[in-house]
């Protein structure tokens, strides 16, 4: 007897059954086995998982992540420590962690970095002095834009209303002009 694919494959999924062959099926099986092994395998080095039991350092990890996102990477352009892969950022994150572990509050850790790098190190500047411009200017510009739109719209509306009056007054003349009414 000649080997034929099962009837279900022939009828239900003809493309998949014929296309695979025994090599394809073996590869599929291998892929499935690999996938199952990967699911069962423990996490290995290189992944960001602390050696401590889950929950013990979760709060500290969250604090380190939050603070790292608020501090600027000194050797990057506009990146936070959290987003930067640079070695200095890694070391700075280690400092953040070490200081939090030693009992310092997040504000004290921030104050340490501000003392070393100035307020520049904060991605979000403190709202005082000239820094207020950063917060106020966008709002002022939006307000100015809205005011501009409002005044322009009002002018156009008034001009439009005036135009209608003029049009209705001059309408008979327009219709009366030769050639204006006929569009053939």
């Amino acid at each position, binding site marked *: 007897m000649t080997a034929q694919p099962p009837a279900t494959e022939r009828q239900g999924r003809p493309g998949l059954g014929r296309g695979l062959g025994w090599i394809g099926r073996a590869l599929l099986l291998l892929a499935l086995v690999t996938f199952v092994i990967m699911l069962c395998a423990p996490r290995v080095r290189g992944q960001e998982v602390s050696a401590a039991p889950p929950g013990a350092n979760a709060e500290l990890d969250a604090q380190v992540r939050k603070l790292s996102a608020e501090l600027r990477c*000194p050797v990057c352009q506009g990146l936070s420590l959290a987003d930067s892969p640079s*070695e*200095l950022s890694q070391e700075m994150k280690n400092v953040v962690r070490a200081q939090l572990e030693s009992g310092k509050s997040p504000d004290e850790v921030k104050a340490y970095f501000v003392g*070393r*790098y*100035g307020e520049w190190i904060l991605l979000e500047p403190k709202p005082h002095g000239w820094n207020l411009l950063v917060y106020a200017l966008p709002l002022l510009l939006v307000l100015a834009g809205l005011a501009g739109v409002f005044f322009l719209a009002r002018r156009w509306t008034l001009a439009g209303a005036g135009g209608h009056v003029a049009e209705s007054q001059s309408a008979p003349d327009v219709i009366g002009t030769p050639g204006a009414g006929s569009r053939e």
Partner: protein
Amino acid sequence: MNWKHATIAAAAGVPLIALLGFGLTRDPKIIPSPLPGRDAPDFALRVFAPGDTASVATATTASALADTIRLAALRGEVVVINFWASWCAGCGVEHEALVSVARRYDGQGVRFVGVLYNDTPDLAMRWIRRMGGQNYPSLQDEGSRTAIDYGLYGVPETFIIGPDGRVAYKHAGPVTEQLLIEKIEALRTSSTIPAAGS
């Protein structure tokens, strides 16, 4: 009516253009340091290059030269701290100036120390040999803790500490002989120089 429009456009546009123009005059890579005028962050770092040209040349490994330098122990002297690395091009540019000024003030209450940043002592030793030696000690900064303490954002960076233990001056980029002598002399004559030196 045209004058009115022009005035409104000028009132809105000129400050914006002035602000953008001001932005162009500033280098975003230069970070103003808050350290000048403040107490210099203390450190105790291991010496990997002792600062003697002969011994650097004969030493086979960096670990054979273990010793520690503590900044607090140098109080009363002018201390020049130079952060450097063997991969840093600017460090090669300023090396001769540092060595020359260190020689000039040898034994006169002025101490030079190099602090290695993001580099290995072995590579650094090779670099020192290639540059013809270094007449002041270089220290190893594990985990860049001292670099971060000094608000470092690149190399080379040089800090000049006064006899009172305060940071008198910070310079980012290669230093020149003239600049070093000028700052050191100002500290030696008045024992303090203006804080806004950077």
